[in-house]
């Protein structure tokens, strides 16, 4: 396949540990930045990215160009502005940013400099999860190379634009990925989310205008500036523009990660790229985009991976990394595993989440250990509403309810089997 069709991973090659500055330049690396600084005003860059139709790859799919345009960049006197790169990647089942960070760090750095220019930020922080040590080493090295080549630092490529990039490694907590909690973490505080409004674009890090973008989002940016918005839009197969890293884990023959056009049908990902289910296993369902997305069923295999279409099917594309449920894994136990994660990682700030998630775990545990009561299923349904959108301080709890609510709908008989068979047994004694 021509590398133009898969811009994000074109420098990732077998037999090469990672792309050096030289490797990156060979495929046109830093040309987008050169063009940006030589020919374009910050507002032009915003417009290019808006026109390209780039939507955030951190899970929510917000228009990147639009987000940048909300940053006040003309006010006098000028005040500090920040760009923050969300490299926290802690959502179970998600393993896409790691690849981009480890294999082609300069692609991210170029995206960062262009984005920082678009919002006139003088400082950027890469917020990296603690466990991504290899990524930290490679980024540090790449930052040194980029500095020596005048791609970062003072007067980048002899322009008026200057940017410092700092690497901040986290100390481990899923809630740090939520953008306002991430800002608190960067300020050295407990990572609890902040009330919104004010939104970060106006009042973020230390109260300054701040844009938070996902790693994969920013990796798209150099290519848009290099080849243009129309080219970028043309990469998608349906409503959404560009390519995306899609992945599959679980009992498929070839778990992995592939850069494919937006709008690639789920069936193609699971059957052609992941090579179908392992021998002896059948597909029972899947979470299309990480732990906090609703289950879909084999009947949804022809749904294309794009934001609005997956939403219409009743789930979310999320991070685009599919977790596969096979017919020999119990969906109730799988949901228990997921809810344990969310309960443990809840920051405890708001009551519905702090109390509701441990309660959810207790109920699920009772069910799988044979202590479930028929009314528990109603209680669980009620919890999915109590912890749903609008009732909690941030999106962690509503995300936690997505796999549960869809499991209750699609795998009800599995829940009931635990409750009623055990009950029958007990009653029979």
């Amino acid at each position: 396949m021509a590398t133009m069709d898969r811009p994000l991973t074109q420098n990732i090659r077998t037999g090469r540990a990672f792309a050096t500055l030289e490797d990156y330049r060979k495929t046109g690396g830093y040309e987008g930045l050169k063009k940006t600084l030589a020919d374009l005003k910050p507002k032009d860059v915003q417009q290019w990215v808006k026109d390209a139709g780039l939507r955030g790859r951190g899970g929510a799919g917000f228009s990147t160009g639009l987000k940048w345009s909300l940053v006040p960049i003309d006010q006098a006197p000028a005040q500090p502005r920040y760009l923050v790169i969300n490299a926290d990647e802690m959502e179970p089942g998600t393993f896409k940013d790691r690849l981009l960070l480890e294999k082609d760090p300069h692609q991210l750095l170029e995206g960062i400099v262009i984005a920082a220019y678009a919002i006139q930020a003088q400082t950027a922080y890469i917020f990296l999860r603690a466990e991504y040590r290899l990524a930290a080493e490679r980024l540090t090295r790449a930052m040194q190379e980029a500095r020596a080549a005048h791609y970062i630092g003072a007067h980048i490529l002899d322009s008026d634009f200057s940017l410092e990039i700092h690497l901040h490694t986290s100390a481990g907590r899923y809630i740090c990925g939520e953008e306002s909690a991430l800002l608190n973490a960067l300020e050295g505080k407990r990572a609890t989310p902040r009330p919104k409004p004010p939104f970060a674009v106006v009042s973020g890090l230390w109260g300054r205008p701040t844009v938070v973008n996902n790693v994969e989002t920013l990796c798209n940016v150099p290519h848009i500036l290099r080849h243009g918005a129309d080219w970028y839009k043309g990469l998608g197969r349906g409503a959404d523009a560009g390519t995306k890293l899609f992945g599959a884990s679980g009992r498929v023959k070839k778990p992995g990660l592939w850069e494919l056009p937006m709008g690639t049908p789920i069936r193609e990902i699971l059957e052609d790229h992941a090579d179908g289910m392992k021998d002896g296993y059948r597909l029972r369902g899947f979470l299309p985009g990480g732990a906090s997305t609703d289950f879909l069923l084999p009947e949804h295999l022809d749904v294309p991976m794009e934001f609005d279409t997956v939403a219409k099917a009743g789930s979310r594309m999320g991070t685009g990394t599919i977790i596969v449920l096979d017919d020999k894994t119990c969906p109730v136990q799988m949901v228990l595993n997921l809810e344990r994660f969310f309960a443990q990682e809840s920051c405890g700030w708001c009551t519905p989440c702090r109390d509701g998630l441990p309660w959810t775990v207790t109920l699920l545990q009772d069910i799988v250990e044979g202590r479930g009561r028929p009314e528990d299923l109603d209680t669980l349904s009620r919890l999915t509403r109590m912890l749903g959108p609008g009732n909690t301080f941030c999106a962690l709890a509503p995300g936690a309810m997505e796999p549960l609510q869809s499991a209750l709908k699609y795998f009800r008989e599995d829940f009931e089997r635990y409750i009623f068979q055990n009950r029958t047994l007990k009653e029979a004694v």
Partner: protein
Amino acid sequence: MKAETNTRSLSAAEIDEINAELPHYEDKSAVSIEALKIVQKHRGWISDDSLVAIAEYLKISPAQLEGVATFYNLIYRRPVGKNVIHVCDSVSCWMLGSDRLSEKLCRHLNVKPGEMSQDGEYTVLPIVCLGACDRAPVAMVNGELRPDLTDNIVKELLGE
């Protein structure tokens, strides 16, 4: 070596590393997490004395720093073994048998999860998804990723 550096004052090396972080942020308290990680790197874990030493250096209250220290999963407020083994217990690894493997490892080392082995060599801890789910089940030994684990986990992780 680790035990004797567990004192109420920061070492010169620790102070140098913390100072190197200071210019990156708008205020001093922002380096709390970095400082905790730096001191933990030198001392293995964060004792009460270490906590007070850092708080004094950053001019924040020990209570505030304690709130930060206990929030994050990878700041240890209890001693850990010389080798820390993190076994992923999130969904994709769980599906592929990580709890069985973790049990096997703990049985071999004669520890419970979170507990230090008697000789002070090992601590096994559960950890959330390590972002390598296509290589499940996965663990991390002293920060280094160990993917594609099998029932030979003891050999694979300890080389025994």
